[in-house]
């Protein structure tokens, strides 16, 4: 199986062939996958070098000129470093585009915090009108990338991960996918968190919803899963803990409810090692998740 980043390159290379309105902007990261597309479409595969403000600003300029830009680098540089460009060169200009990140939370544990952006989804969520996709499998990434590019002039963020679930799931039209049903609460698993969540809640009487689109947040889907209650909801997100807690709270404003927001904590781990070690380090491995979910529901 290819990685999400590899699937990104093959999928978007095909999109470049088919749609002359699209262009890819890179900043020395992910360029190898676009060598062939760059030779075929030299005006629509642009590598600016190690210049992230220009990366995002240039993307905004492409949109002003009538193109559909697809802008890609690591999340820490795409969102954190160039955040004002995301805010002004897309949103404030009134133009759209597709931002595609990689390596956001803990995908390169040995790289340390300089190459991590657990706050990316929360940061983008401070801005108006952004759709945010968090695929959990390369097949889902392909579907969501195609959908993002085809979404008119919308502003779309696609968060690619090294972590994936073993099998792909159907990609809904933005709604949360019910994966299993239970009576004691609802666990929302976002993207690559699904396998760990399903493992963690084995034998527990809880519903599980699977989310690959987190903004807009499917409040109706959550309300439906909660039903008459109890409205005990656990959000398991592969990025900053609590990122969607307020959205879930808004969705359940009509009834008493409790929400546990699990994800990556603010505190830096300051460890290297492997992805699995990091997941355990931040409490997102199956054993930690089971303990935290059980404790919350009891």
């Amino acid at each position, binding site marked *: 199986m290819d990685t999400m980043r590899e699937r990104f390159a093959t999928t978007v290379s095909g999109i470049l062939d088919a749609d002359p309105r699209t262009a890819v*902007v890179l900043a020395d990261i992910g360029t190898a996958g676009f060598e062939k597309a760059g030779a075929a479409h030299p005006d*629509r595969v642009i590598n600016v070098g190690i210049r992230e403000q*220009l990366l995002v600003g240039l993307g905004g*300029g492409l949109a002003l000129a*009538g193109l559909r830009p697809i802008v890609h680098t690591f999340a820490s540089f795409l969102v954190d470093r160039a955040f004002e460009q995301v805010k002004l060169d897309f949103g404030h200009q009134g133009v759209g585009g597709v931002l595609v990140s990689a390596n956001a939370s803990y995908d390169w544990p040995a790289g340390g915090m300089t190459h991590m952006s657990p706050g990316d989804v929360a940061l983008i969520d401070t801005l108006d009108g952004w759709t945010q996709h968090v695929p959990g499998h390369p097949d889902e990434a392909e579907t969501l990338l195609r959908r993002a590019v085809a979404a008119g002039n919308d502003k779309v963020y696609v968060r690619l991960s090294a972590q994936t679930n073993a099998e792909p799931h159907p990609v809904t039209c933005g709604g949360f996918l019910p994966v299993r049903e239970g009576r004691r609460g609802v666990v929302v698993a976002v993207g690559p968190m699904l396998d760990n969540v399903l493992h963690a809640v084995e034998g527990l009487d809880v519903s599980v919803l699977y989310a690959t689109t987190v903004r807009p947040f499917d409040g109706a889907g959550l309300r439906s899963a909660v039903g008459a209650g109890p409205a005990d909801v656990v959000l398991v997100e592969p990025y900053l803990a609590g990122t969607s807690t307020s959205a879930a709270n808004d969705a359940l404003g009509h009834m008493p409810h409790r929400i546990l927001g699990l994800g990556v904590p603010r505190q830096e781990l300051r460890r290297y090692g492997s992805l699995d070690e990091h997941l355990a380090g931040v409490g997102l491995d199956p054993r930690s998740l089971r303990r935290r979910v059980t404790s919350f529901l009891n």
Partner: protein
Amino acid sequence: MTSTSVDTTYTYDDLAGLMSLMTGDEKHGFAATSTLDVLWVLYDRVLRVTPETVDAPERDRFLLSKGHGPMAYYAVLAAKGFLPVDWLSGFGSYGSPLGHHPDRTLVPGVEIASGSLGHGLPLAVGTVHGLRARGLTGPRVWVLIGDGELDEGSNHEAIAYAGATGLDRLHTVVIDNGSATHGWPGGIAPRFAAAGWSAVTVDGRDHEALYEAFTTPHPGQPHVVVARVEKVASVEPARH
């Protein structure tokens, strides 16, 4: 939003009166405006864009990156019929589309919303690329920045990239009124030239010199015109 009747007889000499509709200051603010002559020469003689072609793919694009102190910009746009003169007196008020920083979604003919410094050049680089990708090789893209704005690092990302890749549809005017806190030792034009740009420095009040600098051929290179104007101690709106 459509323009009301356009008085096509407006000339450079009318700009002071148009600006006074915004500033309430008959002459002083006018004289202190560093961008006025550059803007007038561009819109009067260089840019191929009219109120009728503000959405035409083949139009030239002018991006005001230095978005603070936009009175001269609005005055020139009004004089050329892009926006109604009767909008000017509302400058900065709640119901007016004319803010202290321009908004492209509110004002016809305004290509970018600006105010935060250092965004225009990267947006212009992207616009050049986008037009080229669409096969629109005719339009020229102009961006106006200030010497103080040049402090922002994003400009230098764009300057280095545009020079190295020879984006010859890109044109930059730097209004140099000596406002950069630490100055530019060695000069501004040489920095662009070292990055591969065609670069000239002229008197920013001399209309003929500006016109000549704006229309100088620069095959295979982006082009910068550094327009020197007097250093003024006027109170312009905050830089950011």
